[in-house]
């Protein structure tokens, strides 16, 4: 057999809790040559992880390989006993999980866990394994390769832990490594280092790989070939460049089109207008106030901005930069330690409970995860109806009519009215989440990463919807995100935050090459592009990376 991995007409089925049989993977075939990296890409539920896991002969609880063959290096893993498979895992096929933080045992040192596979398979003495691990740490560009293994998982950063998880996968010298969204949980500046390390090691050792991801731009940097999956079927398979530049299948085209949301022209905000919302020297944080009257853990430090009526302000930055805390302060969930928020020129009280209904109504917040932002015990119509009754006193038939209108506005079928949030899809939930904010009839909507948890295509549709509603209702958005493409499409001005401070304010046009502050430059240049050569050609000032990247 020429190919290292040969998957033929794979079928994976599952039995649901109610006893119904569903087919998750419906006849997928592909092959991987030695030293080739194949990416599986698709939205959540497309079966990409399920497919990748079958290379280890593994399926999640309740699932089973119901048809087809999976050959890895001549072994038919799909027909082996569990014992035979266990013997191959780690030696022939290994796995790098999405969240390394969850995959490491917090009570053992990293080295013990990294060399565990070598010990299980009796691949030489502990000292040999240790030497090999240190070699891998060095190859993965980890700092202090000699001693990093003596630390515990919580003593290293997220990006380092992800690389350590790769070291764990590589220690048994496998021929195929499965990467399951390994950089999805990382910040963009960290992601670059991790991707570089993966790429270097995989090429250096000539190992074949399966890279599972929903992010085309990331996949473009590392994969030789791409398989586009949807509903358990291959939509299109091809060379990375061909998929990116000449996609043949309509679904692939949508996927690539969704990558950069379209910016809709609308009447430019009248600059003469008084600002609808203004923040003046806001400082806020958590913990008891210190001697200077500021909280011990200061999350937002002296941030000011103005938002003009009908315009949008983007706030970008990496995790921990204080952007979500800023939204909490504006919404009145966290009182500012210093500074004030002004609505139409009038200062708002710090706490929501001190604000009047009218003040509350005008500023609405929409959270990132619609799963947790909707009360699981209440139906869609209850969720949408409450702000109507609360702010406007609407009841009975008028309330029902308004709920229908809101559902139409966010393009939700009215039939979903009596469903509980658990019975909706991710995109539908986010629409309900947004419709609830609209129900208040607000002037300003704070959008806290509202598209981040959605699949690219769904996120693009939601972004489109936001722009449409803005045109119709004259809303202003504060759009908090780490996704530069979305921010670029929606916002009129962009605030870059780092370490609680506003480092720079830019116009969307300036995002490409117009940033002055070194952190803004680093952040903007770190966003992967849909270009296979992007990572290799990327040059960043090492000093700045060291100064700002969350390593």
């Amino acid at each position, binding site marked *: 057999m020429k190919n290292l991995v040969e998957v033929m007409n794979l079928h994976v089925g599952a039995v649901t*809790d*109610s*006893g*119904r049989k569903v087919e998750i993977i419906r006849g997928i075939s592909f092959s991987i040559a030695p030293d080739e990296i194949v990416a599986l890409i698709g939205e959540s539920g497309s079966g990409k992880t399920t497919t990748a896991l079958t290379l280890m002969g593994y399926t999640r609880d309740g699932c089973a390989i119901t048809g087809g063959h999976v050959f890895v290096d001549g072994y038919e893993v799909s027909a082996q006993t569990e014992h035979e498979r266990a013997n191959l895992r780690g030696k022939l096929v290994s796995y790098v999980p999405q969240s390394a933080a969850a995959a490491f045992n917090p009570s053992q040192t990293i080295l013990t866990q990294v060399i565990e596979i070598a010990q299980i398979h009796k691949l030489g003495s502990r000292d040999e394994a240790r030497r090999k691990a240190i070699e891998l740490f060095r190859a993965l560009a980890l700092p202090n390769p000699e001693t990093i293994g003596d630390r515990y998982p919580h003593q290293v950063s997220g990006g380092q832990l992800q690389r350590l998880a790769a070291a764990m996968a590589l220690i048994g010298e496998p021929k195929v490594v499965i990467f399951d969204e390994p950089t999805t949980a990382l910040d963009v500046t960290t992601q670059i280092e991790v991707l570089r390390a993966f790429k270097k090691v995989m090429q250096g050792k000539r190992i074949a790989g399966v890279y599972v991801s929903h992010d085309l731009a990331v996949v473009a940097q590392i994969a030789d070939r791409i398989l586009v999956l949807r509903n358990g079927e291959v939509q299109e398979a091809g060379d990375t460049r061909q998929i990116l530049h000449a996609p043949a299948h309509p679904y692939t085209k949508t996927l690539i089109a969704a990558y950069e949301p379209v910016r809709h022209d609308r009447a430019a905000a009248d600059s003469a207008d008084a600002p609808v919302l203004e923040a003046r020297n806001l400082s806020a944080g958590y913990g008891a106030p210190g001697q200077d009257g500021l909280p011990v853990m200061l999350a937002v430090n002296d941030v000011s901005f103005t938002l003009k009526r009908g315009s949008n302000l983007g706030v970008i930055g990496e995790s921990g930069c204080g952007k979500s805390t800023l939204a909490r302060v504006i*919404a*009145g*969930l966290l009182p500012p330690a210093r500074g004030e928020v002004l609505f139409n020129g009038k200062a708002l009280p710090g706490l*929501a*409970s001190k*604000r009047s*209904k009218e003040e*509350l109504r005008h500023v*609405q*917040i929409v*959270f990132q*995860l619609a799963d*947790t*932002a*909707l*009360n*699981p*015990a*209440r139906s869609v119509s209850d969720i949408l109806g*409450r*702000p109507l009754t*609360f*702010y406007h006193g609407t009841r009975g038939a008028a309330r029902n009519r308004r709920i229908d209108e809101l559902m139409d506005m966010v393009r939700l079928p009215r*039939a979903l009215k009596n469903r509980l949030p*658990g*019975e909706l899809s991710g995109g539908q939930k986010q629409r309900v989440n947004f419709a*609830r904010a609209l129900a*208040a009839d607000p002037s300003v909507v704070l959008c806290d990463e509202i598209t981040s948890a959605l699949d690219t295509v769904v996120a693009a549709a939601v972004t489109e919807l936001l722009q449409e509603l803005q045109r119709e209702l004259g809303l202003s958005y504060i759009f908090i995100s780490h996704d530069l493409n979305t921010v670029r499409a929606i916002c009129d001005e962009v605030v870059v935050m780092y370490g609680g401070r506003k480092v720079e304010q830019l116009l969307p046009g300036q995002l490409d090459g117009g940033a002055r502050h070194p952190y803004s430059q680093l952040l903007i240049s770190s966003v992967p592009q849909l270009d296979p050569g992007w990572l290799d050609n990327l040059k960043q000032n090492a000093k700045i990376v060291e100064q700002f990247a969350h390593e």
Partner: protein
Amino acid sequence: MTEDIASRRAARGRLGWRINAVGLIGLAVVVFWAFVAIFGPMLAPYPVSEIVDFDYFGGMSAQFWLGTDYLGRDMLTRILYGARYTVGISLAAVMLACFIGVTMGMVAATVGGWFDAVLSRAIDALGCVPNLLLSLVIVAAVGSSIPVLILTLAAIYSCGAFRFARALAVNVNTADYVKVARARGERLPYLIREEIFPNIIGPVMADFGLRFVFIVLLLSGLSFLGLGVQPPNADWGGLVRENISGLALGAPAVLMPSIAIASLTISVNMLIDNLPTRIRDRSE
């Protein structure tokens, strides 16, 4: 499409309300005792305190199904009447305990800060006195009557309900939908009633059942010590006390009320351990 959704919802419904065999047995016994508590006196073959047999500690016979007690009264009648006291007092006490405890727990978790700290420590202090000891002291001091028993049991067991509900509510309180409600400007009563309570109801129901069992046992214990329901009336614990001298004779008069207590408590446990998923875990 619609058909698909309809069938899926039907499947969910079937799944959600399904109860397994153990839970069903528990439910049957609980329903049986509830029936007895309500209609017992109508079913009783003899007046409750009438001496119907010259023999005492009589065995089971066609005339006296469960034998007779130490005075020669019909045991079946005594148990049927006793069910009303045991089940009634316990149910009233557990409802009161859970209402007070769960409400205060949710308020403490939602308000937070010093209010929560003070209330939690105060209730911890009350909760660390042994239950039986505390109830003995209170009942001995105030004197035993049914309202006193109910209030004492409720006060003692509301501590546990408070801590349990507070722990659950603290988690729910940090959820985004509660934050949204706060940002909307909702007040405390709405927050606890609509946002928090529906999401802790499952575990609270299970806790309700467990607490009921504890209260039945404590009430029976108090009656056994002579501080519970006073003669000539008797709950099941009191029946055991009255007839304890029959233990050496193996009289059904002492065994049957014990079995009644055991069957009620065990079946409540069996029921709450196997509640339908719909009730037990509403978030799924």
